[in-house]
């Protein structure tokens, strides 16, 4: 069966520090991969999605970047965090034209 792992679950980082959130998927190949951000009490904002290794599409200009070094690995990064980067970050995967499966999320607090 397919599973998705996202870590860490919570993270507190100072302003200006780097960020690396990792997401891996098991049990499937060539998935579509997504990074979402969710502010408290708000909807899902798509940050990045990837249809293959090294293929990254960005939905909004921001202080973050994403990489897909392996088929089932998706990394969200920042060189210097801003206060506004705080939020709940969700990784998800889907096959072609099927539902998306979400990780448990990372709550990032930038202080």
């Amino acid at each position, binding site marked *: 069966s397919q599973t998705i792992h996202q870590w860490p679950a919570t993270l507190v980082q100072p302003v200006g520090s780097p960020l690396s959130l990792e997401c891996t998927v098991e049990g499937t190949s060539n998935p579509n991969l997504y990074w979402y951000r969710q502010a408290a009490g*708000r*909807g*899902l904002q*798509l940050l990045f999605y990837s249809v293959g290794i090294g293929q990254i599409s960005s939905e909004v200009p921001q202080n973050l970047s994403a990489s897909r070094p392996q088929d089932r690995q998706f990394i969200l990064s920042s060189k210097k965090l801003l206060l506004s980067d705080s939020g709940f970050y*969700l990784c998800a995967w*889907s096959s072609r034209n099927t539902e998306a*499966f*979400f*990780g448990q*999320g990372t709550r990032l607090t930038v202080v």
Partner: protein
Amino acid sequence: GESVGLHLPTLSVQEGDNSIINCAYSNSASDYFIWYKQESGKGPQFIIDIRSNMDKRQGQRVTVLLNKTVKHLSLQIAATQPGDSAVYFCAETRPGNMLTFGGGTRLMVKP
């Protein structure tokens, strides 16, 4: 989309009543639709899906209705329970494309 920055609309229902959550989708070419439930601090979980060749699909206590003419999707929850309290998102997609999420609705069940 713009709706992700807004506070989620809230639907408040009495325990035991039926709930109806609505969603307007944007792309007339979308042919696959999904409802997700997100509990506090967790990632969204799949509830039910429907393809565009159907206008109704039923699950356990949930029914999804699709009206392609007006691009409208609804989720009906029968005999709403306190455990149904969560945020509900609709999502749409078409072949070869990523999922696009709606803004979400918060369901609050009053005992």
